[in-house]
Structures are given as structure tokens and as C-alpha cells.
């Protein structure tokens, strides 16, 4: 079994690595790049929702903060991509810590709404802060990254995001099987019991949230230099909901789930372009169907979604005493 798994993974990676050569079609390569971007976004959100059991509805904002940070540094200060890319992550992480510290003490559902509000505020601020962000005009002409003096071609972008997605998935895999990941999941499963194991709830929640934001910020920075034009409406509430949908559809709390969800939700609309206006109707219907039939998502860890309401209520009443 282990061996078979190894072979499958190796084969899969080989296919991914040779993809632009097997399918030398820039359109398909672009779809693959978008898949990569959303796989990373969904995986990062999964750290918060799937592992730690907190709801965030503002993930698009952190993605946007990363994109704007990197783009503005590149456009205004002409810093190279290799500097602005990590800074996009750092900036998103900073905002993550800020929002986290302010809101993570709230009960789950309220965290969701606060992040929703924060996301909208971010979007509107980007739109109104003309002098910095050029407001509704957006930021065109973001430079193409160079690699040893060579400008990225589309295939270059593909390999970058492939590598980055691989690293993120590897990181999340290791996290999942580490002390820190176990602490996240323990918090999701039972906060009271977790704190009795010596887990600093607030600290670990903040860590999960910050990690998630940092990864979203990084991929945002990549997106800015890939799309080369960004505007506030690309990072609004719709984006947050789309990422959330990917996680929920693919499977919450598993490592593969968000990857699957992102792939399905990026590839499906492309495949069904011929359905024209029915495309989105079907999309909505499928979303309802999957959640009703399999609340944890296609390959989700059951625990996240199938926890009976009573258990949550019980926990809530305990928390009340705790504070």
C-alpha cells in the first residue's frame, strides 16, 4: 500500500512537471496556473477552517493585501519580485496577526462575521485610498518577474506556482503530522480538553490564522505579478466566498480536499463554457447538492462538519464560564 502510494505520488508529480510539454497549450497551462493559485488559497484557508475549526469569511482580503503590497513595491520602488514576493506574505501575516488578536477571542461564528466585515473594509479602503492604490483605476503594468536576468514566460510561471503549491502542500502535510498541527486539530475537536493538554488556545489560534494569511499573501503576490493588473474587485467578498466554497466542497480538514475543491471549481466552469448562462446555475445546484449529501465535502474529515450541534452548544456553555 505504502509503496503503491509512493509510485502514484511520483507518477503524479512527473505528470505535473512535464505538463507544459505534454499539453503545450497556453490556455490549458493558464488554467493549471489558476488551479495552483486557488489550491494554495484553499489549502491555506483550510488551516483555519479545517484544522483549527474557526470560520473565516475574509480570506480574499489577505490575498489582496499580499497582491497589493507586492505590486506597489514593484511599481513604486522597483524592487525585484524576489523581494516583494515574501514581503507580500509578511504584510498579509501582519494584518492576520492584527485581526487575529482582535477577534480570535470571539466565538466561532462571530469570527466569521468579523473577518467578513474586515474583508469588505479592506476592499473599500483600497478603492478609496487613491494616492496609494490608485483606487478604482487598479494597478496595471506590474512587472514580470525575472529569474537570473530572464523574464518569466508562461511556463516559468507554471513551474513557479507548481513548486510553490508543492511546498505549501508539503508544509501543510508536515504541519498536520506535527505537534503544532495536532494542537490545531485538538482545538477544533475540543477546546477545553485541548487547553488541559497545555495548549495555549489563543496562541495557537493566532498562529493558525497568521500562517493561513501569510500563505494567502504570498500567493497574492504571485498573482499580482502573474496577472500584471490588479484591482480591488478581484479580492472582494466574492473571492472569499469562492475560496471557502472550494474548501467546503473538496473536503474540510483533509489535505487533499481543498486541492480537489480548487481543481474542480476552476476546471469545471472552464469545461462547461458551452453551457453559457446555465453554467452558474448548475454551479449553485452542485454546491447545494454536495453539502447536503456529504456535509464534510467530497473527501473531508468527517469531524469538522459532522459534529452534532449539541456538542457545540455544550462547548459554548463551558466557554462562557471560562472567560
Amino acid at each position, binding site marked *: 500500500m505504502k509503496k503503491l502510494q509512493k509510485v502514484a505520488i511520483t507518477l503524479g508529480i512527473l505528470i505535473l512537471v512535464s505538463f507544459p510539454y505534454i499539453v503545450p497549450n497556453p490556455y490549458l497551462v493558464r488554467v493549471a496556473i489558476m488551479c495552483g493559485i486557488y489550491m494554495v488559497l484553499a489549502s491555506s484557508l483550510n488551516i483555519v477552517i479545517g484544522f483549527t475549526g474557526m470560520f473565516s469569511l475574509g480570506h480574499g482580503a489577505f490575498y489582496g493585501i499580499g497582491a497589493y503590497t507586492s505590486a506597489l513595491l514593484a511599481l513604486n520602488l522597483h524592487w525585484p519580485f524576489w523581494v516583494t514576493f515574501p514581503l507580500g506574505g509578511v504584510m498579509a501575516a501582519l494584518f492576520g496577526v492584527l485581526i487575529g488578536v482582535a477577534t480570535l477571542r470571539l466565538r466561532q461564528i462571530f469570527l466569521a462575521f468579523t473577518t467578513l466585515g474586515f474583508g469588505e473594509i479592506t476592499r473599500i479602503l483600497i478603492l478609496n485610498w487613491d494616492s496609494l492604490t490608485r483606487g478604482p483605476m487598479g494597478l496595471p503594468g506590474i512587472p514580470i518577474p525575472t529569474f537570473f536576468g530572464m523574464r518569466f514566460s508562461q511556463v516559468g510561471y507554471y513551474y513557479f506556482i507548481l513548486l510553490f503549491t508543492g511546498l505549501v502542500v508539503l*508544509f501543510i502535510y508536515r504541519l498536520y503530522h*506535527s*505537534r503544532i498541527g495536532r494542537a490545531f486539530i485538538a482545538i477544533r*475537536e475540543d477546546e*477545553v*480538553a485541548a487547553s488541559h493538554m497545555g*495548549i495555549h488556545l489563543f496562541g495557537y489560534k493566532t498562529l493558525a490564522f497568521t500562517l493561513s494569511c501569510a500563505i494567502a499573501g504570498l500567493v497574492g503576490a504571485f498573482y499580482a505579478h502573474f496577472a500584471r493588473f490588479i484591482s480591488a474587485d478581484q479580492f472582494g467578498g466574492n473571492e472569499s466566498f469562492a475560496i471557502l466554497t472550494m474548501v467546503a466542497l473538496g473536503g474540510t480538514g483533509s489535505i487533499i480536499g481543498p486541492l480537489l475543491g480548487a481543481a474542480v471549481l476552476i476546471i469545471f466552469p472552464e469545461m462547461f463554457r458551452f453551457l453559457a448562462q446555465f453554467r452558474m446555475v448548475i454551479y449553485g445546484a452542485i454546491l447545494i447538492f454536495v453539502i447536503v449529501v456529504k456535509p464534510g465535502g467530497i473527501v473531508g474529515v*468527517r469531524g469538522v462538519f459532522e459534529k452534532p450541534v449539541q456538542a457545540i452548544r455544550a462547548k459554548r456553555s463551558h466557554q462562557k*464560564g*471560562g472567560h
Partner: protein
Amino acid sequence: MFFQMRKVRKTFGGLVAVNDVDLDVQQGTIHAVIGPNGAGKTTLFNCITGLRRADAGEILFEGENITDLPTHRIAAKGIGRTFQNIRLFPYLSVLDNVKVGTHLLNPTTLWDTALKSSRFRKLEKEVEDLCMELLHQTGLSEKKDQYARNLPYGEQRKLEIARALASKPKLLLLDEPAAGMNPAETAELDDFIRSLKAKGITILLIEHDMKLVMSIADTISVIDYGVKIAEGSASEIQSNERVIEAYLGKRRN
């Protein structure tokens, strides 16, 4: 003094759940707290582990005041516990449940995790070994990959103890560990708790199974309506009039 409670008081609304309770636990002993249902025993435990904040009084552990510390800090001082209504991590495997218990012993950093450093691997190995050892002791090693929620009730109790032990506590609070166990299992538990004592772990125990309590407890404190009404060895308690009255009086209601 190893563990002390000084005039600890906890009220909920108008109800006094714990009323100026003093408690001394000697190191290396098994100390049982008994009392009728609703006497405030679990609240007492909750005050100790910081789940509830005591309204008055203080709690000292190894000479240090831990009254107002948050739960995870109290756990870090070396106090482990199990819960009356089992609180496992239902969708984690049996082994992972115990691994979470080792949280405090494991100084892995995020950096170690990301790079899978040799330190990370060494520490993970140690954790794995420790946890497997504990599962062997509790007889759960064969079920290590099952979800905790799928274990039968008795084994869930055992797993909770194993998880608490994984943090190598100095003081272990057991909240009704024998609840729902059959006599054979209870006898097993009796041996197991004794073996813990032999390893030097101090045990504070809430239990309704009087046979078990009388058999293993070095000291017994009796609580009724939040007030400590008696304390002493098994034989002293058995002959204490107030205790009998409390129990019988309760029954008459």
C-alpha cells in the same frame, strides 16, 4: 506542601458550589474526594485546572500560587486531568489523542516542522515511543489507528487517562474514572492507579465507586453542598457520622 487549597469558594448565581474548601494533598498519595451528586466535586476540579475561576481563596501547587493562571499554564505546571463526561478528541486517532497529550514535553518549533529537521524527527520519534508505551500499558495499542469516538466507553476512559499521563503530570486529577466500568474493569483500574502511585504520581480522585475508593485512597475528603464535612483515612470516614448522615439524608430525598 505539595498541593493546597485555601478557602476556595465558587458560586454560580446564588448557588454556592464550593464553599471555603481547604484541601491538602500529600505528595505520592492517592487522595479521594467523595460526596453525593451535585456536591461540587467537579467544580472543585474545574477550579484547580483553571476552567473555572475561583471567586475567593487560593490554590497552591508546589508552593506556587496557581489560582489565577490560565488552564494551559496550570497544565504546564504538571497537573493533568480526565473528565467526568469523557472529552477526547473524537475525530483524532487513538494514537494522536495521546500525542496531543505530549504537547508540553515537545519543544518542536514551526521552523523544525517546516524543514522536517533532524530535531523534529528525533522529537517525533520520542513522542511516538512514549505514546505507544502508554497505549501498551492501557491495552489500547492495537486500536491506535481508530478514531477515538469509535472506542467502547471503557476504553475511552482508559484512553483519557493515557492522554493525561502523556504529559508526565506530577498531579493527576481523575474525575470518576470508574464510571460505567464493570467490576472486572474496575479491578483493573484499581491496579493501574496503584501502579501510577508507585511511579510517584500523586493522584486526586473523584469517585462514586466506594469499593474502589476505600481500597486505594490514602486520604478521603467528603464534600456535601460545597462544604468539606470530613477528612481522613478510609476507616475514619466509614465511621464518621456526618458522612453517613449526608449520604443517607441524600438518599431519603
